[in-house]
C-alpha cells in the first residue's frame, strides 16, 4: 500500500467529514468573511439552481438537516410526532442561530412538509428571504418551461433585492461552467463507485459529496479531484459483497453510521439517491443563449425521474430498475425516512417494478438521528447473504 497516499486519503476524508457535519457552518462563515457583502443562500433537498445563486455572487449552501449532531428541542415544539425529522432539525438549527450565516433559504417543491417549511421559515424568520421554488410538473418548454423561467427570473430579482449582484454574461458563464464541471466530477465519483466499489466505500464517497453542501463549486471540485486521484492510488482489495442500490433516502439523509452498517453487513452500495442536488439534472446547462431558459429547459429535459416529480411516461419504478441494471446491482434496499411521503408512497410501486424485473429487494426505515442499527445490520446482512448464496443459482 502506498503509505503517503493512504495517509493523505485518510486526511482528506477526515476533512470532508468535518465539513459535511459541521452544524456551525464554519466554512460558510469563512467564505462570507472572504467575500464581504456577498450572500449565502441555503436550500433544502433535493435540487436548487446553484448556478443561478452563484451567478448572483452568492454561495449556494445545501442544508440537509442536523443529523445526529443536533439535540432537537425547539424543533420538536414546531412539529407533531407524525412529521418526518428533517424539518425539526432544520428549524432547530435556525432557532439556535446556526443558520444565521444564511441570508435566505430556498425550499424546492418536493413534498408538503418542505413546502410548509417555507411558510414556517417566513413566520419564524421574517427578516430573512424564504422562498418556495415551485418546480414544473408540465414538461413542455412552452408551458412548464415558460413558467419555470419566470420562476427563476423572480428568484434573481429576490436575490438582487437582498443585495446580491445582478448576474452579468460573464458571471453566468463562470457559474454555469463551474457547476457543470462539478456535476461531471460528482458523476465520476459515482461511476468509479459503480465500477470498483471496493475502492470507493460509500461512507467515504458520501462525506466527500456532502462536503459540497458548504463549499463553492470550485473548491468542492478540487476536493473531488483529490479524492478521485487518491482512491485510484491506494490499493484496496475487493470483497465478496452484494452489489445493491439504496433508494428512498433523497431528502432526510441517512446517518453516516447507517451507511457504514450496510457496508459492514456485506453490501456494496453501487447506486443511491443521497444528496441529489449536483446530479439531479443529468446534463450540462448550455453556455449559449438565455441562461434562465437554459437552466429551465435543461431541467425539463434532463431532470432524473424522482418521487417529487410527476412520472410522465412509463411505469413507476422503471427508472430504478434501469439504474440498478446500469450499476450491475443484485438487489435494492428501500431505505425511507419515517413519515417521508414521497419515498413511502413510491415504494410499493417501485417494489412491484423490482419484483417484475426479478430484482431482490427489502425495506427499512430510519431517521436522520437514528442511533441503533443492529436490526438493520441483521436484515441487510441476511439480504446480502441471500443474494450471494442464491442469486443466479
Amino acid at each position: 500500500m502506498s503509505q503517503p497516499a493512504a495517509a493523505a486519503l485518510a486526511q482528506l476524508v477526515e476533512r470532508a467529514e468535518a465539513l459535511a457535519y459541521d452544524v456551525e457552518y464554519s466554512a460558510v462563515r469563512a467564505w462570507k468573511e472572504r467575500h464581504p457583502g456577498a450572500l449565502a443562500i441555503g436550500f433544502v433537498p433535493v435540487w436548487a439552481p446553484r448556478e443561478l445563486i452563484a451567478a448572483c455572487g452568492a454561495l449556494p449552501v445545501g442544508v440537509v438537516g442536523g443529523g445526529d449532531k443536533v439535540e432537537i428541542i425547539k424543533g420538536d415544539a414546531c412539529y407533531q410526532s407524525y412529521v418526518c425529522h428533517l424539518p425539526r432539525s432544520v428549524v432547530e438549527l435556525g432557532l439556535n442561530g446556526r443558520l444565521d450565516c444564511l441570508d435566505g433559504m430556498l425550499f424546492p417543491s418536493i413534498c408538503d412538509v418542505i413546502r410548509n417549511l417555507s411558510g414556517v421559515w417566513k413566520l419564524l424568520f421574517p427578516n430573512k428571504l424564504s422562498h418556495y421554488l415551485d418546480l414544473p410538473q408540465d414538461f413542455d418548454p412552452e408551458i412548464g418551461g415558460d413558467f419555470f423561467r419566470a420562476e427563476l427570473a423572480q428568484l434573481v430579482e429576490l436575490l438582487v433585492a437582498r443585495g446580491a449582484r445582478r448576474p452579468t454574461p460573464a458571471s453566468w458563464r463562470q457559474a454555469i461552467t463551474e457547476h457543470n464541471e462539478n456535476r461531471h466530477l460528482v458523476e465520476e465519483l459515482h461511476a468509479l463507485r459503480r465500477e470498483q466499489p471496493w475502492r470507493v466505500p460509500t461512507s467515504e464517497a458520501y462525506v466527500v459529496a456532502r462536503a459540497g453542501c458548504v463549499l463553492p463549486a470550485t473548491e468542492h471540485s478540487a476536493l473531488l479531484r483529490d479524492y478521485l486521484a487518491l482512491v485510484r492510488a491506494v490499493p484496496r482489495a475487493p470483497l465478496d459483497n452484494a452489489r445493491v442500490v439504496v433508494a428512498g433516502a433523497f431528502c432526510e439523509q441517512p446517518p453516516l453510521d447507517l451507511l457504514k452498517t450496510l457496508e459492514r453487513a456485506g453490501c456494496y452500495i453501487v447506486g443511491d439517491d443521497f444528496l441529489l442536488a449536483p446530479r439531479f439534472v443529468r446534463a450540462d446547462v448550455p453556455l449559449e443563449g438565455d441562461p434562465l431558459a437554459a437552466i429551465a429547459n435543461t431541467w425539463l429535459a434532463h431532470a432524473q425521474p424522482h418521487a417529487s416529480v410527476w412520472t410522465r411516461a412509463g411505469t413507476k419504478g422503471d427508472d430504478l430498475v434501469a439504474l440498478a441494471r446500469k450499476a450491475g446491482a443484485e438487489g435494492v434496499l428501500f431505505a425511507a425516512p419515517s413519515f417521508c411521503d414521497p419515498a413511502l408512497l413510491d415504494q410499493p410501486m417501485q417494489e412491484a417494478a423490482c419484483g417484475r424485473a426479478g430484482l431482490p429487494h427489502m425495506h427499512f426505515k430510519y431517521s436522520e438521528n437514528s442511533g441503533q442499527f443492529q436490526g438493520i445490520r441483521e436484515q441487510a446482512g441476511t439480504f446480502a447473504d441471500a443474494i450471494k448464496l442464491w442469486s443466479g443459482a
Partner: protein
Amino acid sequence: MNDSIHKEPSMLRQKELIGGHYRKLARAKEAGLKSAYTFVPGNLTELLLAFDVLPVLPEINALQSAMRGKSAEYIAKAEKLGQSEDVCTYVKCDYGMMKSGNVGPTGERLPDPDLLLLSYTGCFTFLKWFELLREEYKAPTVMLHVPYQGDGAATREMRDYVVKQLRRVVIPALEKVTGKRYDEDRLRHILALSAQAEEDFVAVFRAARNRPSPIDAYFGGVYYIGPIFTAFRGTQAAVDYYRMLRAEVDARVAAGAGPLTPDGPMPREKYRLVVEGPPNWTSFHEFWRMFHEEGAVVVASTYTKVGGVYEDGFRHDPARPLESLAEYCLGCYTNHNLPARADRIARYVQDYEADGFLIHSVKSCDSFSAGQLVILRDVEQKTGRAGAFIESDLVDPRYFAASNVKNRLESYLQMIDQQRRGATACAR
C-alpha cells in the same frame, strides 16, 4: 343524522342530489357516460360538465367509507398490499376500497375512470395517489400543475401557466376521451350558474357572524360544502340547493335560532370557536357531539375553504372562463402559504367574534398539518387568545382517541370560562 330529528328541506334535497349522482355513476357505463377521477381542491367540475363527464372524487369516497365504518377494513387491506402505516389514510382507504371491488357509498360499484384528471392543487400526495391509480387502472391521465402561493399571492405568471395547461393539455385530453369538441359557450353558461350558487354559499357561511350563529361552520359546514365542492357546482341543482339553504339559514337568524345538530337544534350558544384543519370522519358525530353538548359552536373553519375560497370575492366568471378556472384552482385554501393561513384564522377570530380557536391536526395530511404548531403560536400572538390543539386522523379509526380529544376540548373550554371570569372581575 338521527332519523328521528327534523330535517330541513335542504338536507333532504342534498341527500337526493348526492344519491342520484352515485346512482348515475353506477350506471355510467351502460348509459354511455364518461367519468373522470379528480380531486376536490382545484376541481374543474364546470369543464367536466361541459363535456358531460361525471366527476368521481376519491377523497370523498374515502371519507364516505369512514362514515360508513368501512375505512378500517380498507386501510388494513392497503397496508397488507404494501402501503406504509406512515402515509395518508385517504390514499390507503381509497386504494383498499378499489381493491375490494370499488363499491361506493350507495352500495353500488363505481365505474373505472375513463380519465384520471390530476388537478394538482395544494396537496403533494395527490400526485402519488394518481400515479398509483394510473398503475391500477391504466387509464389516460392528465396532470394540471397548479403552482403554490409560496410568497402569499397568485401571480399573473402562475395564472397563465394554468391557463396554458388547460388549453393545451386538459381540454385536448377531454376532447379525446369524450369525442366532443370544447364548447366555450357551454362552459360560460355553466360558470354563470356556479357564480349564482357561490353568492348564496358565501351568505350561508357569513351568517355565522350573528349571535347566536345559525350554523355550525365546521361540522354543519361539511354538509353545506358538499354540492359545491363536488359534482354540482355549475348546475341548476346547486343553484336551487344553495338558495334553499340560504333561506333556511336566514329563517334561523330571524328566529334567533342556533344550528341544527344530529341530536336536534342546539339549545344555547356558550362558546364561539374557529377551527383549522379537516374533521375526523370515523367518529364524526361523536366529535361534533363533544362540541355541541358543551354549547360550543364553530363560527368559521378553514376546512370549508379547501374546495375554494369565495369569501374574499372570487366568483367563477363566464366572461373569462379559463382564466377564472385557473384563479379558482390557485385560490384554494391549502394552496395558501402558512402566513396567509394564519392571517385568515386570526381574521376569523376577530370577524366572527370568536372566543377562541382550535386546531384539529390530522396525522394523514401534511398539507394541513405540517407547521400547524407554528400557525398556532402566530394566531395566538395576533389575536391575544390561546388556541387549542387536538390530534387525530381523517379516516383511520386507530388514531381517534375519544377521551383524549374530549379532555382537551373540555380543558380548553374551561380555560375560556376562566378568562371570561377574569375579564369580568377586571371590569368590576
